[in-house]
């Protein structure tokens, strides 16, 4: 997946969050976005993920040499962020079945188990994820993002709330995705940044 951002800007209530951001991310890259708190890292990531419309500028996505239409973009994206809430009244397994069904996939029990094992979550818990710890919820978010094997992974503070084991899982994921896709990472964590091939800094205006 290739992402080209040209002169992207965002305003809320006529107050500019950031202005004129341009970059190109190629396939196989881990691209870092850094910046002080409130500089608009998350806002930029949401814009890249098609969740917010930019106030100015444009974004283009190419996958396998073909442009990705805006209304199909959600199929190509895996998104992990602390502000992403999952359906907490369902169990981990039910959540996975739900995402698969919404994405038009069929999924069996063994696949579900494999996914849970991959992020180090117990496969035998039947209770709603409401009772999960915040670190376990973060691991569930990882499942949410990788379930459909998307070519573009958007990560916002991916290691927040995670223990060292969880962090290792995230970094393994990063390496896996680098091999066959693209990763865009918004973070201020020094270790995260060390995993990036390139970095830009968003400055608040």
């Amino acid at each position, binding site marked *: 997946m290739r992402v080209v951002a040209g002169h992207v800007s965002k305003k809320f209530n006529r107050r500019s969050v950031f202005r004129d951001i341009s970059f190109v991310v190629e396939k196989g890259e881990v691209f870092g976005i850094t910046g002080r708190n409130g500089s608009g890292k998350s806002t930029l990531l*949401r814009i890249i993920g098609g*969740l917010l*419309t930019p106030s100015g500028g444009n974004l283009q996505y190419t996958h396998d040499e073909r442009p990705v239409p805006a209304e199909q973009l*959600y199929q190509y994206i895996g998104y992990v962020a602390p502000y*992403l809430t999952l359906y907490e009244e*369902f169990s981990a397994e039910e959540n996975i079945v739900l*995402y698969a*069904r*919404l994405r038009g996939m069929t999924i069996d029990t063994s696949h579900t188990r494999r996914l849970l094992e991959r992020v180090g979550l117990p496969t035998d818990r039947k209770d709603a994820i409401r009772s999960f710890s915040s670190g376990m919820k973060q691991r569930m978010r990882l499942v949410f993002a990788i379930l459909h094997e998307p070519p573009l992974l958007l990560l916002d503070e991916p290691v927040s709330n995670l223990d060292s084991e969880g962090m290792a899982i995230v970094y393994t994921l990063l390496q896996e995705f680098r091999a066959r896709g693209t990763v865009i990472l918004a973070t201020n964590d020094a270790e995260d940044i060390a995993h990036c091939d390139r970095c830009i800094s968003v400055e608040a205006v």
Partner: protein
Amino acid sequence: MIRQALAVFRKDLASELRTRYAINALLMFVVVTLAVIMFALAGETLSPGALTGMLWVVMFFAAMSGLSRSFVAEEERGTTMTLQLLATPMGVYLGKLLFNLVLVMALNLFIVLLFLLTMDQFVVKQFGLFWVVMLLGSLGIASATTIIAAIIAKANTKGTLFPVLSFPVLLPLLMAGINATKIAVEDQHWDAVWPDLQLLASYIVVITTVSFLLFDFVWKD
């Protein structure tokens, strides 16, 4: 799109059955409202026409108290973004419409049955026509409230805003529906009700089409 819609519908239904946010409150609302009406009417006889008006009042306010859940719940739990990353706007809209439709139909069926059981003066002479009108009315209420629920989910004062925005939009439906129900309750022939049915049907088509066209703008931030 249809598959996504069904998936959204199944998710909402499962979630509703598990949490019972809307159902319990709605059933209690209907029972309490009917009880108040019966207290107020104790001993008085009301014409079937007046009772028809009351039936629609109960149906309207029951819809107002329950139907905004579908979107408000996503917004309150913070799962709007999750859903945006999982499905197309059309799929979400259709799924929510389907869920609201099922909810309204179940709710209206419950209200009508309770009404028939508890109000002795409420005698329906044309049952076939009566059910047709109830079906069209439920379709219209579900369709109009779904898009308005999507709008108010993004606003601050969700609860009070919902009836405020819904009432003027629903008024043509209410007037035609009340008129048609009155004819079904009192009269014997279908001719008199035809214009009302035509109005109800065209209202449903118009409001559903316009919702389809505009839902994108409401759903995307």
